[in-house]
């Protein structure tokens, strides 16, 4: 559904990404991992059409990413950036309602979706609270609810995709788990999910497909069990690690 073919990106004489090929499939969670500066966020910017690739192409629902009208694109693709700065005292409800801007589903339906999305991130109690007075984790959950509201239901324009850039960085253990559950349930509805994540064990637990970026290139890709090996972790992260099997989920577990 979202395809990247031979993507390269050069900025100011530096080659940030080279030869990236990637399929984000509906119903699957794709996780991108890699060291700091490996190009994860740059890749996300190319995939969302925010930046144009120097070479190669991004195709979304059968059309070049740049050929979509912004509003139509926004009905199918929601993006949660790493940091969101909002210095104005919107309530949580108002922030999440912004996620419905691309749609014309009416106030009543929007209000329902906003309720559901807030509930989904365990944020029902935040409803009328001011964003500017929330904790970091609460803010991040409200932003997550906003992008969920944006792609809450199927649309006629095409299949939906959700992109998350380190969604769990400010979360406690319970909300990390909740985020994995949310990604999983969206995938079950047929949404393609792409998540950039630092925690290898979280990545291994949530992803159907793992993409390892190293210095702007794909170092490995495939199922977590195949990809996560001590050799790869040594090459990419320069850390000696042992791989065990998580006794609860059966997914690989990186011990370092």
């Amino acid at each position, binding site marked *: 559904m979202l395809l990247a073919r031979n993507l390269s990106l050069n900025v100011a004489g530096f080659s940030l990404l080279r030869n990236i090929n990637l399929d984000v499939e509906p119903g699957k969670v794709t996780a991108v991992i890699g060291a700091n500066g490996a190009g994860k966020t740059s890749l996300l910017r190319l995939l*969302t059409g*925010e930046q144009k690739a120097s070479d190669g192409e991004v195709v979304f629902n059968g059309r070049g990413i740049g050929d979509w*009208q*912004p*509003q*139509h*694109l*926004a*009905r199918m*693709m*929601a*993006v949660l*950036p790493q940091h*969101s*700065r*909002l*210095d*104005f*005292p*919107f*309530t949580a409800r*108002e*922030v999440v309602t*912004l*996620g419905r*801007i*691309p749609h014309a589903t009416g106030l009543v339906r929007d209000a329902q979706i906003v309720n559901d999305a807030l509930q989904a991130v365990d944020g029902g109690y935040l409803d009328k609270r*001011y964003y500017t007075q929330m904790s970091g984790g609460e803010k991040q959950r409200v932003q997550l609810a906003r992008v969920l509201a*944006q792609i809450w239901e199927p649309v006629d324009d095409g299949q939906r995709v959700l992109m998350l850039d380190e969604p769990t960085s400010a979360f406690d253990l319970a909300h990390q788990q909740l985020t994995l559950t949310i990604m999983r349930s969206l995938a079950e509805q047929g949404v393609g999910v792409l998540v950039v994540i630092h925690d290898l064990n979280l990545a291994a637990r949530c992803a159907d497909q793992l993409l390892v970026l190293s210095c702007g290139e794909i170092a490995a890709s495939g199922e977590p069990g195949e990809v996560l090996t001590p050799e790869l972790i040594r090459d990419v992260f320069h850390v000696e690690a042992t791989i065990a099997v998580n006794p609860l989920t059966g997914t690989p577990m990186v011990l370092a």
Partner: protein
Amino acid sequence: MHRLPPRTFLIGAWLLLVAAVVLGLLSGPVSIAPGKLLELFSRQSDMDVRILQDLRLPRVLLAMLAGACLASCGAVMQGLFRNPLADPSLIGVSSGASLGASAVIFFGGVGFLSGVFELTAIAAGAFIGGLVATALVYRLASTITGTSVSTMLLAGIAITALSGAATSLFGFFADNEMLRRISLWQMGNLDSANWSRVGIIAVAVLPLMVLLPREGRALNAILLGESEARHLGIAVESLKGRLILLTALGVGVAVAVSGVVAFVGLIVPHLVRLMIGPDHRYLIPGSAILGAVLLLLADTGARSLMAPAELPTGVVTALLGAPFFVALLLQQRRKVLE
């Protein structure tokens, strides 16, 4: 923070505006009996009615339109810059207009221009100065990848400093009479109100009042961040261009007819936001109405406080608005502490 429902607030603001209009029409050096208002649109040659028709009404309308324009443009700028401290002067329009007006006063003062024509020339100079300054700031901040809001802020500061220096130079070389007029103009004054000026500003402000609130939802998205707004389907670059242009036009015209009335564009949106929250769909119309009220009250004060002499409107605006705003801030602080 306790918020008012936006609709309640808007109704209250409209009522306040009606009261301010009545007050503005009745008070001044000559007090007029309220009953005369009924004859406002009659063709009588009664002295009071003539005062209402030829002097008070255009002045009241001018104050309303200029106030509405400055305050709603302020709301838009604060949203676009995602900064509650932004105001229209940030994009250089006020200082550019100042420079334009000072230049006309300086060069015109030699005696070519006089009377009504001179006033119109000053207004034209102000308008052109404002537009040129804004265009410069916008060009400086634009690259092929888009317009950088932070560069625009810095460019605005630089252009403001530059035109401020040039204005001071005109003041330095001007004779006493010119210097007095330049500084009077910078204080903001509505004493040259007449029907043709009302016409000029109405042509600019009325479309603005229709166009700006339509961008409310997009501005709400912009508050999240430009890239977030883009992901919500907002065409951010064209939105920015449109809003800067509309603001430059609106503020340019307002400054041209009323001089530099500072403060309204900064304080009114802030005040409205404290009362109803940052949703631009209500913030922009709310600021427009309250801006009209503030400037109207200030101008009524300017005409009446020391009658028959007049104070500069801009001075009264700050005298009235600043303590009120401080009181509001203190009240907010108390609520937060509780």
